[in-house]
């Protein structure tokens, strides 16, 4: 029963992607350089962060650039999933109350949208590979595992947040604020090695840290510790269990309060 439903959701991902794709295409239609804006935005952000962080924390900008760049690109995907997750059902409210389309299409729409945006940003990494002395080797492939895990987990995050914030309207603001804090307490533009002793709790108990490192470390030529994968896989299992509970509890009533 659950498996049949899961299979259906999986099949709907492709459909969601078409929707997200049309959203993206339409967004660019009236812009002169369209998709390039998305890439430029991150480029400037990464450039600025690198200069500031090198001045404040130390190190040469050219050395810090790949670390901070990959950190920012991954973080942007994470925060897009979480932030857009909260508004997923709210922006689709008219379809939810007016059509019989399955609910996972909306979740998939948000996940695919953040994946498409991520693809815009990762172009910068490819450029960096060409023009900068950035590591590239077999280990890099491990980041694909990290990426897959990130978006697989993104799906339950979007789902859970979409249901809860449709019902509890304060959640959207709470999450947005927390994500701003999370940006600073997650080692994106600083290294986790700066933390020692009790302060390490900041990263050890930070779920985003694990997702970030599973994508970033292999790309910089270092394999993440095995237990990172265990942590993320546990979050995956717990997350989907949570999604199932939230779905069971709130799905029938969603059109009434969305």
């Amino acid at each position, binding site marked *: 029963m659950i498996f049949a439903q899961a299979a259906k959701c999986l099949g709907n991902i492709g*459909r969601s992607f*078409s929707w997200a794709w049309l959203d993206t295409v*339409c967004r660019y239609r009236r812009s002169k350089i369209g998709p390039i804006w998305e890439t430029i935005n991150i480029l400037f952000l990464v450039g600025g962060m690198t200069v500031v962080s090198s001045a404040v924390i130390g190190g040469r900008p050219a050395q810090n650039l790949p670390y901070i760049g990959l950190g920012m690109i991954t973080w942007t995907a994470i925060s897009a999933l979480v932030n857009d997750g909260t508004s997923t059902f709210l922006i689709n409210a008219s379809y939810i109350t*007016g*059509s*019989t*389309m399955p609910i996972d299409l909306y979740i998939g729409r948000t996940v695919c949208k953040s994946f498409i945006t991520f693809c815009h940003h990762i172009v910068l990494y490819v450029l960096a590979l060409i023009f900068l002395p950035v590591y590239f080797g077999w280990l890099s492939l491990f980041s694909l595992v990290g990426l897959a895990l990130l978006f697989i987990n993104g799906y339950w995050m979007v789902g859970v947040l979409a249901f809860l914030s449709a*019902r509890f309207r304060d959640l959207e603001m709470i999450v947005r604020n927390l994500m701003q804090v999370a940006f600073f307490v997650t080692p994106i533009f600083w290294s986790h090695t700066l933390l020692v002793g009790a302060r390490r709790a900041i990263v050890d108990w930070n779920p985003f840290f694990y997702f970030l490192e599973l994508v970033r470390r292999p790309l910089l030529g270092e394999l993440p510790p095995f237990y990172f994968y265990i942590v993320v896989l546990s979050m995956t299992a717990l997350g989907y269990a949570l999604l199932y509970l939230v779905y069971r509890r709130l799905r029938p009533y969603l059109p009434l*309060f969305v």
Partner: protein
Amino acid sequence: MTHVRLAHVEVKIPIYEGAARRFIRLPSLSRARVGSADVTRSPGVLWVHALHDLTLSLAEGERVAVIGPNGAGKTTLLRVLAGIYPCSSGIRELSGSVGALLAANMALNSDATGYENIRLVSTLEGWPKDRLKDYIADIEEFTELGEYLGLPLRVYSAGMAARLSFAMATIRAPDILLIDENIGAGDAQFQEKARRRVDQFLGRVKIIVIASHSTELLRSICRKGLLLDGGKMEFFGALDQALALYARIGQRPVAAAR
């Protein structure tokens, strides 16, 4: 065997604003007069009783017009039939595929062209790919939108959007077709075409339920009438009789109609 059965269906819609604790006093729902048959309060929640004890059975071949004053529960009834709203109590039984045209506009992206929206709907609804060409030709023929189909949906008038939505919702002839109001936005010529299309479908669409204020449209399509008032079914039978009863209700002021 296509059929629809509702037994003692109640629908209560929760309003959670009543529970909000705010630092800043907003115009408050707490002063709403409650305790009538329509609105009740349980701790923290106002409940709007949208449908009361509704029992209904529709068999193959029935074409039903749902009429009643604003706020009578017409849209709620259609949403219950479509399976969008859950029943607070009572039973809903339905066999057959459902096509619902409930939102004023089925546009999935108003910046996308008519064709793009058609293609996206075909993906989301899973229309057979090999028939897509025929479907598009059919929609072109039916809507008579011509070159407008190549323009973004945001430039469509309400009537044009209604034509497109109607064409898309009816293209695959569902067993049960539910339509709310919006074809009323079409002009006289369109309404005639809609009637002909419904006639054409008669062999395939087995049950039709339409809510509308356009007596002419209802007369041309439906034989039976279901009169709702204040969430209760006042009458279900011959359309002429239903319309006559409705005219009598219409002479009372809205507040007294309850």
